[in-house]
């Protein structure tokens, strides 16, 4: 993560750039949250690159010192909650739109709170494309029917790509802070 100092006048210009980028990325996340919470899922799909990788590992209770190796299941190899691309995500959206996807019928009330947005160094990419790595925390509240309530808390690590005049999510790693999932299903997006 790059450090920002607003008092050091020599890096003032750099700091302003960083602030503008920070503001831009945050605005992107608020828009994304808004689309999801307003159930504008098709529009949300447009915020994802065609080659997006969307991954939420399982998390295990392991002994001290083994977290790096064993706490989270591995993408592309192990079981996970999600390990998929845009095709499957679009199928999830299409299923919601059938009106007979009973786990989301009636639709849940969902609210995404996104905080702790930290922008990492720009990743190495060709000159004509612009990518940044961003981590953020989420708290997602879901209430459905009468008293079914779930709170999902965790962290996302994204690669955002600037494409067609917009930021888009090209890669998303979602760490949910639960090992045994305490909700009966994961019918919502993170």
């Amino acid at each position, binding site marked *: 993560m790059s450090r920002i100092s607003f008092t050091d006048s020599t890096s003032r210009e750099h700091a302003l750039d960083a602030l503008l980028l920070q503001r831009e990325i945050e605005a992107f996340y608020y828009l994304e949250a808004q689309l999801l919470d307003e159930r504008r899922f098709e529009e949300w799909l447009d915020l994802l690159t065609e080659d997006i990788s969307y991954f*939420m*590992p*399982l998390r*295990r*209770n*392991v*002994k001290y010192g*083994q977290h790096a190796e*064993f706490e989270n*299941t*591995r993408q*592309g*190899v*192990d*079981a*996970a*909650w*999600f*390990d*998929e691309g845009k095709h*499957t995500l679009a*199928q*999830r959206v*299409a*299923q919601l739109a*059938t009106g*007979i*996807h*009973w*786990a*989301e019928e009636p639709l849940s009330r969902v609210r995404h709170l996104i905080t702790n947005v930290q922008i990492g160094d720009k990743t190495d990419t060709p000159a004509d494309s612009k990518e940044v790595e961003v981590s953020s925390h989420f708290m997602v509240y879901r209430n459905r029917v009468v008293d079914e309530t779930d709170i999902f808390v965790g962290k996302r690590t994204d690669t955002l790509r600037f494409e067609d005049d917009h930021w888009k999510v090209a890669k998303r790693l979602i760490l949910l802070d639960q*090992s*045994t*999932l*305490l*909700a*009966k*299903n*994961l*019918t919502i997006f993170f």
Partner: protein
Amino acid sequence: MRESLIATDLIDGDGGTIARDIFVDEEIYKREIKQVFGRAWLLVGHESQIPKPYDYFTSRMGEESVIMTRDKTGKIHVFLNTCPHRGMKVCRYDQGNARVFTCPYHAWSFSVDGNLTTAPGGLVGVPHYKKAYRGGLDKSQWGLVPVAQLVNYKGSIWANWDKDAVDFETYLGDMKFYLDSVLDQRDGSPGGSEVIGGIQKWKVPSNWKFGAENFIGDIYHITSHRSVDMVSIGPSGAGRRDVLKGDKAAKIVIPPPAFGSIGFPNHGHGCIGALPHYEEPDYAPSFTLTPIVEEYYKEVYHRRVENLGKRARGLAPVGTIFPNCSFHGMQPRALFTWHPNGPQEMEMWKWYLVDADAPDEVKNVLRQYYLRYAGPAGLTEQDDMENWNYATAASSGARAGLYPYNYQMGQGFESDARDLENAIFTSAVTEQNQRLFYNRWAEFMDADSWDALHPKNSANHADILARCQQ
């Protein structure tokens, strides 16, 4: 409050109607934990989860935590995960490698090897042993509690708390045929499955039996999955699966019609599947979205034809081993358990399986398909859990509780399942397997000991066939 609880009274007309109480009543639940989970064979895990000496995996039997571990010689053990001193869990990790489990509370330690102690799981370390106990503690009596019986069946590990329970293969009966179809390699050679790393575990506000009865034979509910078929998650792009769809199902076995509900009334197991057949049906392409995988399965098909020759084979897309282990046998392929967490909650655990010797690329395509089909994020399974959730909640209504559920579908139309022992069969949509599941459940609930539970002594099978012949 009931004067005395007799489970068979809750089930009328040989299983045709069943009281809602069995899904919500505390007293019934407590009895179930003791009578069913205390005596039945329960799935604990898979040997591929603990490949090396001293590897362990913490699992569950009924409500309780157990540790499945492998000793230095490769032998697998299962112990209750509680310290005999004051009860603390001796292991709070999901998996790992340990020669000794040391209790966090007062540091009693237990060895998984029998050589240091009188028995595996034995107490080997007691802080201040001499000063505090003054020689008055017999360590040989205070080890971790082992299960009474344990079996490694083609890599799947099962355990039983009752030393008088019949051995696992007797317990399975001819259901073995269908469990084999899950655990055997796709090319027909015995065993050889492995678990994809990471077990999905999640809590569902449902009585555990709703899951078990769904997988034992509720083919009727496929209508609830129409939204998945509409978006087509199958490995060849259509529907939910490659095979056993529509009239293709009839073609898959020789001679038709041999596909339907197959149930074992004396055992309590059942599946949706094909009766034994002695020839492989014609090759049908699968996984056509991924040509490499399709090629691989074509080759596997030819190996299977060769390996099995004219030998009997079965197949079953879904089934339940009484009481709480179910499986997906084909697409997807998984073992799972419905662990009871009180009458109105269960914890689902899911072990996804692949052939150990399949190429990585094939394993990966299977894995992605499994994950989009099953589990809490699976497009198909999400809707099942929704239905079980609300069915459970509605079972406790003061008024609703007066009205039993209807399990009469196809009753009286069962026939003897050809080439299988103590088995019944219905080719069309039916609830025969749900009925036999609950009849067996009631036998467990009411029986005083395993003497009355031996599959040979069960009256279920004879009763059903006598009724069909009337």
